[in-house]
């Protein structure tokens, strides 16, 4: 395909050509950044979490009489275990993603410093099984450790704890974590086990450093334990939540009882994020549609304007394919120019977002992907008008001259 005549023709229509280039450039820049943001947020929504998310339900009981915790919690657990389908039940102080952070900074030396906020979880007897923690090294807590441990002023009175895999590698790189000591606020604990990465109570607040920084302590029944974790088959979970809320409502008439499946907790935590994703997707789709229709409109006019020219070309021997190709090549050239400008613009916008918002650098491959998307849309948009141009009969050339 000869490009020179196309360039010559574009030079005669500089302004409309520049407008198409500008529109494609803007669309490319916005598209790359929006898709990048969508990708980042989708990754957030799917943060892995090494507990049995599909099989857990959480019943939260608040406003109980603190003095009765030691006797009421075992009674409540016994009632919960009696619900058909419940395979394990335990009390806990908080849950991953429950947006109620209890954070402490742990160090490997008595007077060390840290900038990582570690989420602290206290589990009642059987808590590991109820949550479905993945034990990677060492052991879970034993009955004595559960019985002898509690919490005072948000601090564990125990001597042992479990750490996550991420923390084990961060705190003791290249060494085993088992048997090592962690320090915080003048107290110390020995690591007895390493578990798979469990999310923080509020990972967005804790930041990337604290996302998988979690520790687990054993504890006997304590007034701070407001969460009852139930493990059940995924298909039973809605019924289990209903029955558990009823059972605890009867046992604790003065308390406020709320139940949720863990899947629901995750959905709630990321509700803002997913609505942002939907909004971004919507804007991208509408923006591409507007761009495509803009190209259709402008090219249609071009075709209309050049009917006679096309007729002449057809009359002197150009095939329909030639005419079709002419418009397709023309669009390809314009798209290429637009995409080239657009990629630079996209990069610039990304730099701006990095300096003003908590955005990371856009990986390079988003740019060519955005370029390909706009090339495709350009070609699709031009197809209709180009086919109409190809259908212009050669006789037009003779008719109106």
């Amino acid at each position, binding site marked *: 395909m000869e490009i020179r005549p196309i360039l010559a023709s574009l030079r005669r229509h500089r302004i409309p050509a520049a407008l198409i280039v*500008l529109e494609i450039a*803007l669309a490319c820049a916005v598209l790359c950044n929006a898709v990048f943001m969508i990708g980042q947020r989708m990754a957030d929504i799917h943060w892995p979490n090494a507990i049995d998310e599909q099989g857990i339900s959480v019943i939260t009981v608040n406003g109980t*009489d603190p003095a009765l915790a030691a006797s009421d919690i075992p009674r409540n657990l016994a009632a919960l275990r009696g619900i058909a389908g419940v395979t394990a039940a335990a009390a806990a102080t908080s849950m991953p993603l429950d947006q109620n952070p209890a954070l402490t900074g742990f160090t490997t030396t008595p007077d060390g410093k840290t900038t990582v906020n570690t989420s602290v979880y206290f589990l009642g007897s059987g808590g590991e099984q109820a949550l479905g923690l993945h034990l990677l090294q060492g052991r879970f807590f034993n009955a004595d450790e559960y019985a002898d441990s509690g919490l005072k002023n*948000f601090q564990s009175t125990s001597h042992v704890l479990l750490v996550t895999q991420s923390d084990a590698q961060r705190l003791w790189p290249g060494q085993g974590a088992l048997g090592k000591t962690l320090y915080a*606020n*003048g107290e110390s604990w020995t690591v007895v086990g390493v578990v798979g990465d469990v999310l923080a109570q509020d990972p967005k607040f804790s930041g990337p450093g604290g996302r998988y920084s979690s520790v687990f302590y054993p504890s006997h029944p304590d007034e701070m334990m407001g969460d009852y974790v139930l493990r059940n088959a995924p298909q039973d979970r809605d019924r289990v939540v209903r029955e558990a809320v009823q059972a605890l409502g009867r046992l604790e008439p003065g308390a406020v009882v709320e139940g949720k499946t863990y899947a629901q907790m995750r959905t709630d935590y990321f*509700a803002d994020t997913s609505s942002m994703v939907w909004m971004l997707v919507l*804007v991208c789709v*509408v923006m591409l549609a507007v761009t495509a229709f803009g190209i259709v409109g*402008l090219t249609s006019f071009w075709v209309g304007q050049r009917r006679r020219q096309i007729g002449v070309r057809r009359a002197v021997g150009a095939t329909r394919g030639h005419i079709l190709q002419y418009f397709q090549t023309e669009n390809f050239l314009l798209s290429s120019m637009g995409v080239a400008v657009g990629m630079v613009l996209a990069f610039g916008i990304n730099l701006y977002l990095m300096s003003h918002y908590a955005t990371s650098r856009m990986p390079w491959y988003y740019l060519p992907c955005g370029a390909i998307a706009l090339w495709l849309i350009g070609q699709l948009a031009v197809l209709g008008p180009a086919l109409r141009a190809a259908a212009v009969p050669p006789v037009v050339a003779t008719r109106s001259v």
Partner: protein
Amino acid sequence: MFGYYLDLALRSLKRNKVLTTLMVLALALGIGATITTLAVLRLLSGDPIPQKSAQLFYPQLDPYPANQPFSRSGKRVPYLMSYIDAMNLIHARKAERQAAMAMSQVKLTPPSGVGKPFYAQGVLTTTDFFPMFDAPFQYGSGWTAADDEGRAQVAVIAGSLNDKLFGGANSVGRMIRIEDHDFRIIGVLRTWAPQPRFYAVHLGGHSYGEGDAVFVPLQGARADDLMPSTMMGYGKSIDVEHLETAPAIWLGLWVQLPNAADVAAYKMFLGNYAKEQVALGRYQRTDTALSGLMEWMRSEHVVPDDVRLQAGLAFGFLLICVVNTVGLLLAKCLRRSREIGVRRALGASRGAIFTQFMVEAAIVGVAGGVLGLVFAELGLWGIRHQPAQYASLAHLDLSMFLFTFVVALLASLVAGLLPAWRACVVAPAPQLKAV
């Protein structure tokens, strides 16, 4: 003359229905998206208390130990205050008004077993809170400084809670059960929900949405062990039994300073206070800060970043829509070169041609504005059904309504400039020759 241009423009728009629809639709989508996001942004970044915000200030002190700075950079002054410091500043009475506050999720038990207990947002604060923030009373009043010191078990409740518990009747003098302790109601507020809830930044809870349900004296509530939602310790551990003396920050302090001289004096006072504390050995640093309300909202990023990003994105989208409209208008006007040639030959001036095409662009703009308004209402309806805490606030007010048309007209007139200019420089002779 204008009527004639209008007629010409309408004829021209009617001739190409598909193209006209396309232009109007694109412009309307761009405007709809922009107005939706701007309405939300304006709402969220608005002044929560316009009549007072210039006088309200948020002081900060730094009690953190030398080897354990509050922030990584060591440059940020802690955003909450310890009980001792808050009380020292309140008792110093160096500002016209001053109040300390903490948020607490409290269990409310309805009277005489009617309904189940439920949780609501409570505020533990001191006497000046109500007059300083212009909280309007429907019944009764707030408590006094003597009530604060006397650890009085009194409460001010929100109108919505009064409706729920007492059917909207005057409940002053009745009892309310908070966290299993009885408090006597001494005041009922009218609807009061500043957006954002500026006084609760960093204290816990949401920044937008419904107002708080109960207000109780700080000392009295603490005597009943009501716990603040947020506590940050800087010592060995937080002794929750003795939060008042523990090395922990958990209070926000607001002061009212009517003029610049008061502000300067208060800054001086804060600096001297910090130096005094260093001399006493309580503090290691003399850093202090005093921010105005709106400045504090900005520096603490109260408006979610996502909302700002959305507004930026919508503007980008509007820009694309405007470029699109320019292109389509231009294509139209280039096709009408012959018509322009004839009009020019018959005596129309360049200005007349220019005006004619701008009128055409303006019509597209007005149509785009009307449709854009529909899209904006649709967008806001969508936002109201989102889980965001500010969802229920998303509405279009009169000024945004008018602003929509300004944006639409402006966008279409900017879009019309280039085509109209191209149209008015068309030389009439060659166009007539071709006929």
